[in-house]
């Protein structure tokens, strides 16, 4: 439903995006409010993309990479992890619920886990409510 929160997800090509594809080929079902953007590595994902997604109206941002130790590019996922934690601290300072941003590891074989994650995160965002970021930033008060 359109009143459902919208989740923008950034998935790494090798593990998470492949895992999401596997959820599809295995015909798993999950919430349709997720919109995926593929990047080659979670190490490509930085604060700018996440902030931009919220600024454009996302209610939650999901970041997925390969499991620790399994990154196709060795350590991109750790770089992502470091940025994620700092970003969470920054958005909290601005008053946003930091749980609107989530980082999880999904391997190429974890189609089921991906489907569960989407539903689980989607429920979490529903619980937190629609984000006010876009509206707040567009209002001049």
């Amino acid at each position, binding site marked *: 439903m359109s009143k459902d929160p919208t989740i923008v997800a950034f998935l790494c090509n090798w593990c998470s995006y492949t895992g999401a594809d596997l959820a599809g080929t295995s015909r798993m079902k999950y919430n349709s409010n997720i919109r995926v953007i593929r990047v080659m590595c979670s190490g490509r994902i*930085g*604060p*700018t993309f996440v*902030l*931009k997604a*919220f*600024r454009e109206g996302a209610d939650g941002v999901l970041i997925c990479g390969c499991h*620790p130790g399994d990154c196709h590019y060795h*350590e991109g996922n*750790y*770089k992502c*992890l*470091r*940025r994620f*934690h*700092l*970003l969470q*601290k*920054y*958005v*909290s*300072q*601005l*008053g*946003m*619920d930091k749980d609107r941003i989530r980082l999880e590891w999904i391997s190429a074989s974890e189609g089921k886990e991906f489907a569960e994650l989407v539903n689980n995160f989607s429920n979490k965002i529903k619980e*937190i*409510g629609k*984000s*006010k*970021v876009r509206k*707040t*930033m567009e209002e*001049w*008060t």
Partner: protein
Amino acid sequence: MDATKNNKSKLKLAIYWGAACGGCCVSVLDVHEHLYDIVAAADLVFWPIALDTKYKDVEAMEDDFIDITLFNGAVRNSENEHMAHLLRQKSKILVAYGSCAHLGGIPGLANLSDKKELFNRVYLESESTMNSEQIFPQTKTEVKEGILELPEFYNDVRALNQVTDVDFYIPGCPPTSDRLLEVFTAIVSGSELPPKGSVIGAQMKPLCDECERKKSDKKQVKKFLRPWEVIDDGETCFIEQGLICLGPATRAGCGYRCIKGNAPCRGCYGPTPDIIDPGAKMMSAIATAIDSNDPDEILEIIDSIEDPAGTFYRVSVPAALFRKKIVENNVEVKIT
């Protein structure tokens, strides 16, 4: 000097301050004896800090009467906003002068709070305040002589381009007098102006390009330190000493004044070209430099970054993607 006299051979220059500390106006005076060159080439038609021209004199000017307005300061209240619109209307070229007009500046840090919190702090809670009647500033107050008016204090601080159309930006807190003179000389000499919207009086490359401190590829940090926690060796890159320096993400042009004074860069010259969020890139770089892959240790190291919003967006909160405080249900906001 008759500020409104129309002298065709000379440029007409205006300088205005919005929410500012006055430093930008002083930076104009800091050109020292070159001020004579400026007034030889231009008539100053409006400059509240130095001249007695009134707002109504500006209102009386024809549209585009002023050749160049250097607008410094952010837009914090209705007076600032009114003047921004008015000067836009009266000026051929409107320049956002200094960090506050460019990105919101130090006053922009107030966007991490809202009006109510600010008023409570200033008019109720501050240690030196006695205000048992809880009197707050009002836009209109009736006294027996009539009605007194104050500008309306806005909830959020804005950069100049968030209020009106801006032609050029001269960054800096304040801009260096040298850069101002260069820009002024170029305009007077009739040089071709850069495309509208350009940042002028600053470099494309970040500060590190000029900085003379020793840099290496050892950008790995176990603990971030605040300046008072470090005995600076005076020659090593601040970041490699564990200090957060915004130099790598900030345009050069300031003459690395802070660095020369052994203080890390605070980013007053603003981000490099095509950056959509002024602090996110540096935040990303600093996070990447965290020297750990262990989630707990990463959190511990991040703990040592006291105030990310105030650090990475020191002069640019209003220009950020998250330009002000977000009020969410059930989230307690911590102001640092």
